[in-house]
């Protein structure tokens, strides 16, 4: 077993050496360095194209998905080896998408065979770019109060309503969207629908954030016709009609794990060591850096313990909420300290020296970490209720 894994490691190393261009072994600098796929996608350069196509053909855009759905069918241990080897050469992800992170896991869990064959392959091959329609202007933390309504017209629904915080909706091809299909049952009255963003009646409007960037949109649905079926064994919804909340809850768990996994930013390096290279830290700031490094290294141990326990089926099922809470709060603190260490340089919004205000924009972006995917306050509610079992929580 260990031997097989070692030979897989060697093969992987050789394959990466042969297929990952040097330009793709650099940290992601800006949005253009991320390849999202989709109908209208363009490559920034040949290296990005070459790297994406090599991974696509090998199943490495989604290494742990089954081969028949466009993955490489790697075991968890093999997938870990691949991640380690990619990290070792700083290889960029060949394809980023909400299809990979969110819809894919939902389909693998709840989808029909026909849905998996079609949608997972499209995602793995970077052909269709998905966005997520969950929140509404009046339904943020209290997501289940959402009002976007789909009227049953036999073989299709007619959907009306508005979603908000739909990431990159203006660039997405399809949307997975929570739609109310029964007004009388709050939880068992939501359907997890799939439809084309090019459908008549769908429009989007980017939202400009305090970081100056617009990764999110408002999405409006005005008499949008959503078919109940896209062909044999390909329903236009995931799971059962009116049971979309089960799918959404499952995905929220996924999303929290994903966000918590990035919490604290690059935790392998000491923040104090990195920032002190730019200039001597004021003594009190140095002390804050040390206290931050202690918390960051401790959080890394917590994440590692969580992953170990997850693999072994141990640990409390509500733990991702704790990781999400602690990880995002830590990341915000990290960015506050980076701003302080950077001084007036970090305030620069557009200069070349700061790559267009990367520190400042990044700092502002992290403020959303503890809001999106469930606010810190909601996470604390869940911990109080499900882990500490406090009354009335």
């Amino acid at each position: 077993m260990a031997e097989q894994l070692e030979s897989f490691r060697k093969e992987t190393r050789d394959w990466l050496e042969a297929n990952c261009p040097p330009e793709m072994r650099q940290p992601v600098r800006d949005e253009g360095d991320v390849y999202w796929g989709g109908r209208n996608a363009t490559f920034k350069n040949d290296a990005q194209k070459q790297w994406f196509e090599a991974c696509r053909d090998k199943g490495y855009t989604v290494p742990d998905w089954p081969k028949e759905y466009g993955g490489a069918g790697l075991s968890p241990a093999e997938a870990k080896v691949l991640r380690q080897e990619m990290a070792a050469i700083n290889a960029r992800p060949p394809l980023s998408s909400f299809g990979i992170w969110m819809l894919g896991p939902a389909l693998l869990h709840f989808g029909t065979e026909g849905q998996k064959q079609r949608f997972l392959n499209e995602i793995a091959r970077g052909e269709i770019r998905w966005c997520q329609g969950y929140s509404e202007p009046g339904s943020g933390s209290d997501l289940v109060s959402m009002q976007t309504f789909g009227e049953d017209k036999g073989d299709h629904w007619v959907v009306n309503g508005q979603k908000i915080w739909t990431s990159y909706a203006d660039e997405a091809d399809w949307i997975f969207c929570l739609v109310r299909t029964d007004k009388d049952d709050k939880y068992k009255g939501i359907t997890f629908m799939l439809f084309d963003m090019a459908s008549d009646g769908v429009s989007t409007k980017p939202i400009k954030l305090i970081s100056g960037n617009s990764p999110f949109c408002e999405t409006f649905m005005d008499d949008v016709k959503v078919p109940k079926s896209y062909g044999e064994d390909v329903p236009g919804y995931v799971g059962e009609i009116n049971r979309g909340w089960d799918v959404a809850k499952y995905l929220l768990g996924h999303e929290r794990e994903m966000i918590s996994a990035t919490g604290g930013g690059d935790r392998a390096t000491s923040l104090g060591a990195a920032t002190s290279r730019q200039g001597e830290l004021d003594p009190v700031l140095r002390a804050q850096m040390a206290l931050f490094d202690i918390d960051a290294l401790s959080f890394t141990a917590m994440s590692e313990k969580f992953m170990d326990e997850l693999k072994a089926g141990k640990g409390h099922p509500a733990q991702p909420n704790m990781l999400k809470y602690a990880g995002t709060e830590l990341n915000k603190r990290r960015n506050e300290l980076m701003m302080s260490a950077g001084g007036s340089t970090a305030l620069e919004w557009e200069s070349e020296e700061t790559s267009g205000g990367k520190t400042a924009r990044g700092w502002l972006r992290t403020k959303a970490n503890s809001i999106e995917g469930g606010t810190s306050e909601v996470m604390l509610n869940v911990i109080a209720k499900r882990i500490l079992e406090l009354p009335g929580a």
Partner: protein
Amino acid sequence: MPLYHDDDQAMLADSARQFMAEEGSIKKQLRHWRDRDCKDGFGHALWEQFGEMGFTGILVDEDDGGLGMGHVEAGIVLEEIGRNLTPSPFLTSSVLAATALKHGGDDIKGRYLPGLIEGKSVFSVAIDEGPKHRPETIRTRAEKSGNGFRLTGQKDFVLHGASSDMLVVAARTSGSDDEPEGITLFAVPKDAANMSHDAVRLVDSSMATHTKFDGVELDGDAVIGEVDGGREILNAMLKAGRVGAAAEGVGVAGGAMDMTVDYLKQRKQFGKLIGEFQALQHRAAHLYSEVEIARAVVVKAQQLLDGDSEKADLMSSVAKAKVSQAAGLAVREGVQMHGGIGMTDEYDIGLYMKRDRALSEYLGDAYYHAGRVAELSGY
């Protein structure tokens, strides 16, 4: 290695938990000895029971009659000690002194280890000089005298000093006060002439001494390891002791948190259980998160130490500092959320606050270790 207990360790945890809850409880031990003004601050009978359970020799090699286990296992016992506030000389004897003796010759091992393993001997370590932990500076001197040494100086915060059969003393045999090298460790027997203890009771009812060495004559065979080669052994002791104290601190934090969460589910005000108030729920949930993270980093540090990793030194300081902060939060929130009764001696939550304070200070507080983390990380 996964960051959780394997089956054997889980079994040890079960038996340690049960044993400490029954035999080491606050009522049976801490309050019992405190209320009798015990000069030791712990019970010798319990220490012998530790010996019967095998705990005393947990870090001692099998060849020397111990269990030959690691810091994960020692930490399992320590966490239960922390949870029950069980007064015992485990940390000083079975972790710190035992780590020092690992570096000693067969003669010194033979002299001291059997008594430790049986739970009959109590050992202390004399490192600090002054009210703060600064092991980088050692002024206590041991000068050549005949075939042996003559020890002069004063040590502080010597836990169980007056109850000890032997003290491991860090003294300077060469160089100036701040030099890393030139340290030698001595095993000083309790009946050494010209050694005197000024015993003081600490806030947590444990006993410590200011110990004076006024020309204490020691044979050459009192040296642990090599003359002038003590710094490395001292560092090994400190790593083990810090990770051990951190494990005990996780127990203190967990005990205080559990008590407090239980209280939130019982106490009614304004016609409601106070645990229904979101202001308290969020604080309790934040506390849970901090304690879990502290627990994780302690296991990480223990495993690194057992694996003899280069990162163990850094992570021992990270663990000590993180636990000190998490446990500090646990006891402060504990007393506050208990309200008025949290201030009474009758309720146990205040005892957790006192123990945490002493344990946090021992072998360096969070501020000391934060400074160390910065230095070891290169800033």
